[in-house]
């Protein structure tokens, strides 16, 4: 995956809680056997009417946020299905960072494996970001190394991230290659199990 450290962009304020992975990528787009090309389907039924025309007041269709790399939403982002197509589609659309007060576990894991940075801020910090972003385009700089989000007005928020995943994201490591370095431990474990049966 692509390494990620600094991201500078206006934030896209998605004023919703419990955004589930069915909304992020609807099932009719899960039949593809590739990892790529899902961006055009992200939030499909929120972006488009049934006749294919744009839903004007949906935030992703707002010209001011075109090209944004940072999505901000309320609690429990990514709940529901385990489909990794959700982070694939968010990344492919152009976002590199999602900021929310909390994330569903599987979605959070899936982000880490794909270089999509999930940032947890407090509820009030997220509300502030959303409010700023809704008034007028509001730009922030995300710095993973320093674990900070800094607004255009200088307002800085810091966030926690598991050091293991931080390294993986910063370096764009392939986790499977890393795990192969533990092959000896895996083989030993299997040997122990075999003997205990």
């Amino acid at each position, binding site marked *: 995956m692509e390494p990620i450290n600094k991201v500078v962009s206006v934030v896209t304020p998605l004023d919703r809680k419990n955004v589930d992975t069915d909304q992020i990528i609807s*099932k009719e787009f899960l039949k593809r*056997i590739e990892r790529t090309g899902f961006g055009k389907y992200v939030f499909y039924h929120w972006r488009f009417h*049934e006749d294919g025309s744009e839903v004007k007041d949906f935030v992703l269709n707002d010209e001011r946020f075109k090209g944004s790399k940072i999505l901000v939403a309320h609690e429990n982002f990514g709940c529901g299905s385990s489909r990794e197509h959700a982070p694939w589609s968010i990344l492919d659309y152009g976002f590199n960072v999602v900021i929310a007060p909390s994330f*569903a576990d*599987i979605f959070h894991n899936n982000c880490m*494996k794909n270089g999509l940075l999930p940032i947890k801020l407090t509820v009030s910090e997220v509300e502030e970001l959303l409010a700023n972003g809704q008034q007028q385009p509001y730009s922030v700089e995300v710095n993973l190394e320093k674990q900070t989000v800094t607004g255009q007005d200088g307002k800085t928020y810091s966030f926690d991230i598991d050091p293991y995943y931080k390294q993986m994201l910063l370096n764009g490591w392939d*986790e499977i290659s890393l795990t192969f370095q*533990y092959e000896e431990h895996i083989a030993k474990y299997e040997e122990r*199990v075999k003997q205990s049966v």
Partner: protein
Amino acid sequence: MAKNIIEKIWDQHIVYEEQGKPDLLYIDLHLLHEVTSPQAFEGLRLANRTVRRPDLCFATMDHNVPTRNRDAIKDPIARKQINTLQSNCDEFGVELANMDHPDQGIVHIIGPELGLTQPGKTIVCGDSHTSTHGAFGAIAFGIGTSEVEHVLSTQTLWQTKPKTMEIRVNGKLGFGVTAKDIILAIIAKFGIDMGTGHIAEYTGEAIRNLTMEERMTICNMSIEAGAKAGLISPDETTIAYLKGRKHVPEGDAFDKAAATWLALASDEGATYDTVVEIDADEIEPFVTWGTNPAMGSGITSHVPYAKDFESESDKEALKQALAYMGLEEGAPLTSIDIQHVFIGSCTNARLSDLRAAAKVIEGKKVHSSVTAIVVPGSRTVKKQAEEEGLDAIFLEAGFEWRESGCSMCLAMNDDVVPTGERCASTSNRNFEGRQGAGARTHLMSPAMAAASAIAGHFVDVRELQATKA
């Protein structure tokens, strides 16, 4: 020190641990299906990797498969996905119950049916309802496709040890109240993110009294409570279910295994990071009215009012949900008309579910404005139901009787609820568009869905059952 079952199983499966890193956890059983696996197999091929333990993998086709006219999948992309699973399993030596195999079915139904699911195992699948297998006292959780690839090539996963949660259901269930009502009531009471970062153990008298199939319904929806996994300590009910199943040891080996399994149960005095409780006798037959599984109420109740909620974001969520669902604040649940009934899914498509629904509809007719389908969870369930004559009861009443698969639970195949129409569904998710773009899903038990099919609107199934008894 007294340990709970979650800690016991976790500790047994640690391959490697180090400060500052997640644990490297061994995986005992990896279930696969057509939708979340193709990119993982492709990843193996690109990196020139193999499947480390094909003997610990088992695959089936369920999400995408048609429930009628199976030989002709019209959608070429869907067909390609099905064919890809077949060729991947052939290439990497993974056992597969394909569409024509007698063991085919929804992955979370056939794992237990075949005895692949056993107490004490770590079980994963590229599907969030993997939590179902926790009913046996296993740590079972859903993973993404990158993790599927990781397990295929290493049989392990890096996992941060989750917190533990006890969900205790005290006392006895009232007349006509089912396992589905328990789990919907729990989620409505504590919220869809109550379990985030936790593995939950369900305990208490009401849980102990459940059959294995009912326990699977409960654990299935752990993910709807946001938990990574949900499980129930094994007991004699668990052992009796497992005995004689295809992949379960026999004779002395079974007795030895059974003793080990029973010893996994949480120790007396074990503690948890979080404990929540609910009284079984406060639970009614449940129906959801909104767009997530926590948006539900007992059948004698009504759609809530905005004023019932404190926070602005909850009021806003209610407004959005009701706009999508086409419902008014305060509407009695029994006043809501439906056009579709779906009895199926990994939550409620086992034999006991079909029996419960059949009992309600026997000798009655599906309402003229309702289309109703039954999709058995596996080919085995279908066969057993047919041997008992359940198919005849459903057909006689006006239900359609289909082949097994996920079907209208996520509507990836042709089984779709049209825009703006309303479905009483025994599945587990009522998210916007889940059963079709613009479709309105209401979750409930098989008995409640069956009763709605007859009435054409939601009804309290207990009234029907009471007159029958």
